[in-house]
């Protein structure tokens, strides 16, 4: 229980608002945030960067055989979204009955990701919704 609280708490900011970071020397942007810039290595400063959550589907797949956590949600879409700001973000894509295609415009919606049983914590985060 204690481990689950700390793990969830550390990720709340990033998961609720797509908060990543940006290398202050080469301006590379990251989500999820990275401790060091992939291009510049150790020496640069990383600043907090909040992404607006708008983007388009870069790639996607329909999950029919899910991990136990998402057993009751299946089938569902996961995909890679290219954010307007540049970074690629993995996430669930909401299924609203319309066909999802590469290039479909999406926005970050706020949803339950999963629930830890009957008495545990509820994990909220962004999911991408076709617009």
């Amino acid at each position, binding site marked *: 229980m204690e481990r689950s609280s700390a793990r969830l708490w550390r990720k*709340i*900011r990033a998961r*609720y*608002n797509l908060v990543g970071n940006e290398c202050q020397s080469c301006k590379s942007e990251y989500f999820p945030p990275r401790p060091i810039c992939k291009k510049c290595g150790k020496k640069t400063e990383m600043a907090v960067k*909040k992404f607006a959550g708008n983007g388009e589907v870069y790639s996607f797949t329909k999950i029919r055989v899910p991990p136990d956590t998402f057993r*009751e*949600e299946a089938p569902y879409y996961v995909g890679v979204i290219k954010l307007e700001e540049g970074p690629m973000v993995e996430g669930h894509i*909401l299924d*609203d*009955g*319309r066909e999802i295609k590469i290039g479909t415009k999406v926005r970050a*919606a*706020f*949803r*339950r*990701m999963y629930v830890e049983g009957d008495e545990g914590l*509820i994990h*909220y985060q962004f*999911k991408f919704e076709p617009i």
Partner: protein
Amino acid sequence: MAGIVGYGVHFPIYRIRVEEIAKVWNEDAEAIKNGLNIKEKTVPGRDEDAATIAVEAARRAVRHAGINAKEIGAVYVGSESHPYAVKPTAATVIEAIDAGNNVMAADLEFACKAGTAGVQMAMGLVDSNMVKYGMAIGSDTSQGRPGDALEYTASAGGAAFIIGKEKGKVIADILKTVSYTTDTPDFWRREGASFPSHGGRFTGEPAYFKHITNATKLLLEETGMKPADFTYAIFHQPNGKFPVNVSKQLGFTEKQIEHGLLTPIIGNTYSGASLLGLAATLDVAKAGDRILVTSFGSGAGSDSFAIEVTDSIEAARGRTTKVKDLIGRNKVYIDYATYLKNRDTIKMK
């Protein structure tokens, strides 16, 4: 005096029709549709709850108001279906709208009127200069016991209102608000119970009608206004029939309530209901229009508001998604089995 600087709404895309529920219980769908004046209702997705709906509505409200969320000094979330018994929905909202941490926040519960109670609290804080902006949200994913009459109406949705008093920002002044509260056992849910219980016919006359009527009459008396002084009126709408009847009894016309009457097409969104009706009305209101809103929460009480729209409403208009547009976007109709699965009524172990 404090007024509305922005609002936002949200409800799920899933719908279930009265016919689909009636079929399961071998009831007469036409009789129910006519009796309750309802066609279909919203159903939350498996990944939606009162917190996710509150966040979506709150984000739209911040955009509509055109303010920095860090200027919001108080957030109150009214719901009878808070996801946790202990752990505030309001804390999730402030984090998700990035309001910062110096925010007064709490969850409220007063059956269907906790959202308007939050508006009154925010007004007090704004008028006393304790906060610049206060946010009040009514959000619910309410449940009706399978087979109960409530199952046709109990739906999901929510609305967030930002209260402030800055000239040029206020899109509608709140001229006056009053409340009428008594201890009335018309509807309740005990801790740990999955579904609410209610007093059947008792929910009508001694509960809904008495409280709405007393609060509205008090408001009219204290403002010296009469029904004809209002362009629009919204009354809490547990079904599509009660608000039509109470508005007639109070001397309002069908034309005054038509824009705010949403229950026939989305169901009873509980804490969201009166505020959603107000939002849909503000979507079409013009400067100078007066709007009367009276909510009702079982247990029981009513909050009544006299509102006057300002010139600033036009500048804010394009920044929000209209209620009727959201209702009309791609709806997904589900069957009764999917409905039970979405509502977690099927026990998996």
